[in-house]
């Protein structure tokens, strides 16, 4: 497998751990600096963070409903973390931590477990009725089908982000070995659009999966 | 299209024939020369069969994703064309049509993903590798 040159690599621990820690340090320091000096008329950085939080609030209210405000910290930090870690790949010498399946699978598993827990807590015992299908005669077959389609959600959720970011990184690496001049740099900065797009899609799908397990059976029939 | 097809057929024929010729060569040699040379020749045959196997599975993987994506691409193009034409006729239906277009495109995309799956299986998890490598 081809490999990009990496600036910081501590031997013994995987590269994406260091990259995740770098992303966390960047986000925490930016949040600390911005939070220390909040203004009424926001500057560039503050308005960017405010945009993310206001947008998340809007989507949660529109898609989930009134009980959606509870998920604001989780979903907004998902958006900020994924966006920063996608954008870290555009700096030469670093790679995105989301270009490994471990990071994205962790994020998708959090959404999966949380959505089913909250659905079970809201509906109680009636939540199991969602897995039985429409006809009670076909229940033994339908339960396998429903469990499979429920299990395929976190996989596709994780795989989409991973595959897109990994393909970007891999394309730049291959181009770097084929013709190491201007072209890889151009391709590297073409990816910024894809980075924003994939972060947005992951974030929206997380909200939608939570909303799907929260909504009741009667709403689906209408 | 016919040209490409005939080139592919000729390529496959040449591959098959070369294997036969090589095998015949080895057989003739091994009959003629002593037992020491026989092991050398059989190791040659093994290397040849291994390289033929891996080369052909790489070729098959490339052809699978390439030819599979042609169909999905043509289908997606005609779907987008139909949706855009009907959107131009009736702009009030725009949002409904976009949702249906994306549904159809997701199903076509799954066909392309099946081709990608076959490519990955041929490249990374070849089921016949155990027979060749023993």
């Amino acid at each position: 497998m081809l490999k990009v040159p990496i600036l910081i690599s501590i031997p013994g621990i995987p590269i994406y751990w260091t990259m995740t820690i770098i992303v966390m340090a960047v986000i925490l320091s930016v949040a600390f600096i911005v939070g220390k000096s909040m203004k009424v008329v926001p500057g560039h950085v503050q308005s960017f963070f405010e945009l993310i939080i206001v947008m998340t609030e809007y989507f949660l209210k529109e898609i989930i409903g009134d009980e959606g405000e509870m998920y604001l910290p989780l979903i907004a930090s998902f958006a900020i973390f994924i966006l920063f870690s996608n954008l870290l790949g555009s700096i030469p010498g670093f790679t995105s931590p989301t270009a490994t399946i471990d990071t994205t699978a962790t994020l998708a598993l959090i959404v999966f477990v949380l959505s089913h827990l909250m659905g079970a807590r809201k509906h109680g015992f009636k939540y199991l009725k969602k897995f039985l299908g429409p006809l009670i005669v076909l229940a033994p077959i339908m339960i396998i089908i429903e469990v499979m389609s429920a299990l395929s959600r976190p996989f596709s959720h994780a795989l989409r982000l991973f595959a897109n970011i990994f393909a970007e990184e891999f394309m730049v690496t291959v181009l770097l070995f084929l013709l190491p001049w201007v072209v890889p740099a151009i391709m590297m900065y073409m990816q910024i659009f894809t980075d924003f797009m994939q972060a947005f899609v992951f974030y929206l799908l997380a909200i939608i999966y939570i909303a799907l397990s929260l909504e009741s059976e009667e709403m689906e029939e209408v | 299209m016919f040209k490409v097809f005939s080139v592919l057929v000729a390529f496959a024929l040449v591959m098959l024939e070369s294997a036969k010729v090589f095998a015949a060569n080895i057989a003739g040699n091994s009959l003629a020369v002593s037992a020491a040379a026989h092991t050398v020749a059989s190791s040659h045959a093994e290397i040849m069969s291994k390289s033929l196997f891996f080369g052909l599975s790489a070729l098959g993987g490339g052809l699978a994703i390439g030819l599979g994506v042609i169909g999905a691409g043509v289908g997606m193009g005609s779907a987008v064309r139909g949706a855009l034409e009907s959107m131009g006729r009736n702009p009030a239906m725009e949002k409904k049509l976009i949702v249906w277009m994306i549904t159809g495109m997701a199903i076509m995309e799954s066909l392309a993903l099946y081709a990608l799956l076959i490519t990955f299986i041929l490249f990374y998890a070849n089921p016949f590798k155990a027979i060749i490598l023993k």
Partner: protein
Amino acid sequence: MDKQFIKQITRMSSLGLNVIISSLIGFAMGYYLDKYTGYIYLFVIIFTLIGFIAGIYEIYKQIKKEINTKI
């Protein structure tokens, strides 16, 4: 921005991956069941087919929901 519109588009665009991944999950389940019970290729075939049906059923459910909602 229209909430229903964005919701539908995002949900529909993940259907293509769902079909293939649910059949892969079925394959994995069948493979381990085969290993556990000792059959050769019985559960693999059954569970791969069920996984494929699960993917198609997911598409059917989403389309039914899409017909019922108004944009």
